[in-house]
């Protein structure tokens, strides 16, 4: 509750910031302070302190998992702004506008981690998506950015329509927007209502798959990620996506679990398609940015395992995966931004030009590939473990690891370019302390790679 209110207020404040304050640096600092306030407010709610005690009639439900997810995603946003502040400033004279959009997105995030009502799901998704459409088109003078924004907007609206249609069907079948179990279980007798509910759920499923860019609903992802300004791609692929996943799990992982059997086969198909499309197409990419877009589809395939069945470690798995994946992705995009071009060749010889940057990039890539000693290993491990515990066939786990091995191929292409290829890297000028900020991220990943508990313990107290 606190987070929803405070993020809205901060968004509005940020919006008017650029009137009085002209310095980009100050605007960035205000945004950072705002994020800290947001984190504090959210943690305060964890300890029972509320700004307003308002009865939402069961539309929102705040639990430990949702609030902790909020905290983590806010912290990730903080890291993101802390590292990318300069780059954001380059895109506009009034970067405060972008920060304000971030706060609105975070408002959407807070709704998505706490909704218990399909209307709130819809509202959350919309609050999250609309600022994203704007951010995609933020580079106004760039045709690709405009094209990407239009594509994203059209496709996104279409999927929202499907989402609404699905919600309508479910309402028709159950007579309520509330997702609490007993209501859904009421639908037993009449065949017509059963069909309506199933149709509604399938539509809802499709729309959510679109939001998390799972195949075969992924077609917007490469174009949008490629066209959007790289800083915002980084935000879209991490924080926004993680929030969409948490919402997805909230709907299908727990609430409509009773219907699980009827759609396991559908989910398996989606997972396999996502892993296949993401990994195989990523292998053939020439541009690192596009490769990362496909790799984010592939990673989504792994995260979908969390939906396979609710087990005692599903929550841990999705949180760890989302956080670790986000840190690594923010890191690798932060390196990519500083390259003059997006090709693999631009990384050639980076280990000689800037050994520290090459090292942190290696850590990020290792983490994405899931190699032990980095957080990515435990993220993948938890997912696979959740999958086994949920009773999935061993063959599915084996398919997953085969694709994990394939992913090594495209991630290591950058490592090879940095360390083994000769040539001049296309590294642009780096701001002061930039590499050290990234080193901090890399160390975070390495620590999580040995002690993932540090992150997960807070889920319980």
């Amino acid at each position, binding site marked *: 509750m606190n987070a929803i209110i405070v993020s809205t207020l901060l968004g509005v404040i940020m919006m008017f910031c650029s009137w009085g304050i002209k310095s980009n640096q100050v605007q960035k600092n205000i945004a950072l302070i705002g994020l800290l306030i947001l984190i504090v407010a959210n943690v305060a709610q964890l300890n029972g302190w509320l700004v307003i005690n308002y009865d939402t009639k069961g539309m929102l439900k705040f639990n430990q998992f949702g609030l902790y997810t909020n905290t983590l995603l806010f912290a990730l946003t903080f890291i993101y702004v802390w590292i990318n502040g300069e780059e954001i400033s380059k895109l506009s004279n009034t970067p405060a506008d972008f920060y304000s959009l971030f706060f609105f997105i975070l408002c959407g995030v807070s709704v998505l981690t706490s909704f218990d009502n399909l209307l709130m799901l819809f509202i959350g998704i919309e609050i999250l998506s609309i600022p994203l459409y704007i951010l995609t088109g933020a580079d106004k003078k760039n045709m690709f950015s405009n094209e990407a924004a239009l594509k994203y907007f059209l496709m996104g609206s279409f999927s929202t329509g499907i989402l609404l249609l699905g919600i309508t069907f479910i309402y028709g079948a159950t007579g309520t927007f509330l997702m609490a179990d007993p209501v859904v279980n009421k639908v037993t007798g009449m065949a017509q209502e059963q069909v309506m509910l199933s149709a509604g759920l399938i539509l809802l499923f499709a729309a959510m798959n679109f939001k998390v860019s799972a195949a075969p609903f992924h077609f917007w992802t490469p174009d949008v990620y490629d066209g959007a300004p790289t800083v915002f791609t980084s935000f879209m692929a991490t924080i926004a996506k993680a929030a969409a996943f948490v919402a997805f799990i909230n709907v299908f992982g727990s609430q409509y679990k009773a219907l699980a059997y009827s759609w396991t086969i559908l989910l398996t198909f989606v997972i396999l398609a996502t892993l296949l499309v993401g990994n195989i197409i990523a292998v053939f990419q020439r541009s690192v940015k596009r490769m990362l877009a496909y790799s984010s589809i592939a990673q989504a395939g792994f995260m979908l395992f969390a939906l396979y069945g609710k087990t005692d470690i599903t929550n841990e798995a999705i949180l760890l995966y989302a956080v670790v994946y986000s840190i690594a992705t923010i890191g690798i995009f932060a390196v990519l931004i500083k390259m003059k071009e997006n090709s693999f060749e631009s990384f050639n010889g980076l280990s000689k030009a800037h050994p520290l940057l090459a090292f942190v990039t290696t850590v990020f890539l290792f983490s994405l590939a899931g190699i032990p000693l980095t957080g990515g290993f435990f993220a993948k491990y938890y997912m*696979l473990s959740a999958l086994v515990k949920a009773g999935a066939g061993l063959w599915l786990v084996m398919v997953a*690891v085969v694709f994990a091995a394939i992913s090594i191929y495209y991630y290591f292409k950058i490592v090879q370019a940095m360390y083994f290829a000769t040539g001049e890297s296309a590294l642009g000028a780096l701001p002061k302390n930039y590499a050290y900020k990234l080193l901090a991220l890399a160390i975070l990943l390495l620590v999580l790679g040995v002690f993932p508990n540090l992150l997960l313990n807070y889920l319980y107290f």
Partner: protein
Amino acid sequence: MILVSFLFVPILAALLLLLIKDKKNAQWTAIIFSGITLVLACQMLCTNMVDFDKSWLPNLNSRFTLHADGLSKILILLTAISFPAIFIATAKNNFKQSNIFLSLMLFTQAGLMGVFMAGDALLFYFFWELALIPVYFLCSIWGGEKRIAITFKFFIYTFLGSLLMLVGILFLNAHTADHSFSMQSFLHANLTNGQQATGFVLFFIAFAIKMPLFPFHTWQPDTYEQSPTAVTMVMSAVMVKMGLYGILRWLLPLFPVAFMVHTHFMVVLSVIGILYASFIAIRQDDMKRFIAYSSIAHIGLMNAAIFTHTQIAIQGALIQLFSHGLNVLGLWIVADIIEQQTGTRSLQQMGGLAKKQPTLAILLVGFALANIAMPLTNAFVGEFLMFNGLFLLNPWMAAFAGVSVVLAAIYTLNMVQKVAYGEVSEKINTMQAPYKGAQAVLIVLLILVFATGVYPQPLFTLTADTLQQLFVK
């Protein structure tokens, strides 16, 4: 505590080396620290209480457990001997950024030590990967011409194998009573025969790729050829033992039924591999590839011996794990000296080493004899026991595998003949006396080869407890 020091000392040295830019100092640091590890390893042989156990990942029920019985100890000892020997013997080789090179080598040592000590499956997997990653960089940065593509193939190949093992670990974890990863609860997991077979295959592929066992061996000759020789030494003396260790430590105790079912199949597969590799070794002209194929044959024999599941053969394999490490290390060092000085590995261009450098030729012949498993050398003890076990299982198998001894004599002596005897070739003529350090290492290794060949009892005593564990149940 002493077991932790086997991880701690190499990692500390590796981190220190990142700061030492000067080549001489870096080499001394590496040699001194690996020497400390060796001293500690010798001290370990005299102590009994060596287990270490600490909480690591309570959520997952995984503990940081280090455990050493005879099998672990013998491999720890081999690892501890190999690294200082390699550092000294290759000290004259020229590398750019030698401090980074040595640092990565020491990380590998830590990983290998961890593999041989881990008593927790997840920890085992961790170290299994930790040993691989530095090697990837070592080969790709300092290797030969085609290094990048070949090392990449090697990496993806072994990584896929390890991931399948990870699935196996997960699978077993789900079937343990307390959902932990400890060796004990894995041993008490109640598996049906079908489940055992699944777990067996998942683990076995990882081990077979690592060994490498025919038909999973295709990465090996190329990788050995392209890697810098110091790394090849680590791989063939110690790393390949990871696969055999895995079979003895995990595969055999965890899936006894599946193990027994596959006995004949595996022995036949190994014997095919032995003959195949031996025949190819005869035709090799490149010295590195020659040793690579001869190594495949030897490892195949050890694998066959383990799968006979007879006490005598496994005893032989346990000894041979150590002996093969020493012998192959010696061969590599001789090959490296010749390559460094003459710039060639082609057997065609060699000849007359005995006239030009008699000491080196004597050392070469010594290790060559050990490679053929002549009596009085250490390999004889192991191979004799292994053939004995194979004979108990099936005389025909012993006969076919026995051909490999003849083939080994053919290819090894052929190599010795080409290198050491005949006319002094143009390339060999340019050779200087090998550098004193390398020569000293070779002499020490050769003494060990004959000492354990004449009096192998200490090795039997050391591995007695492992053998007992494997056969008492």
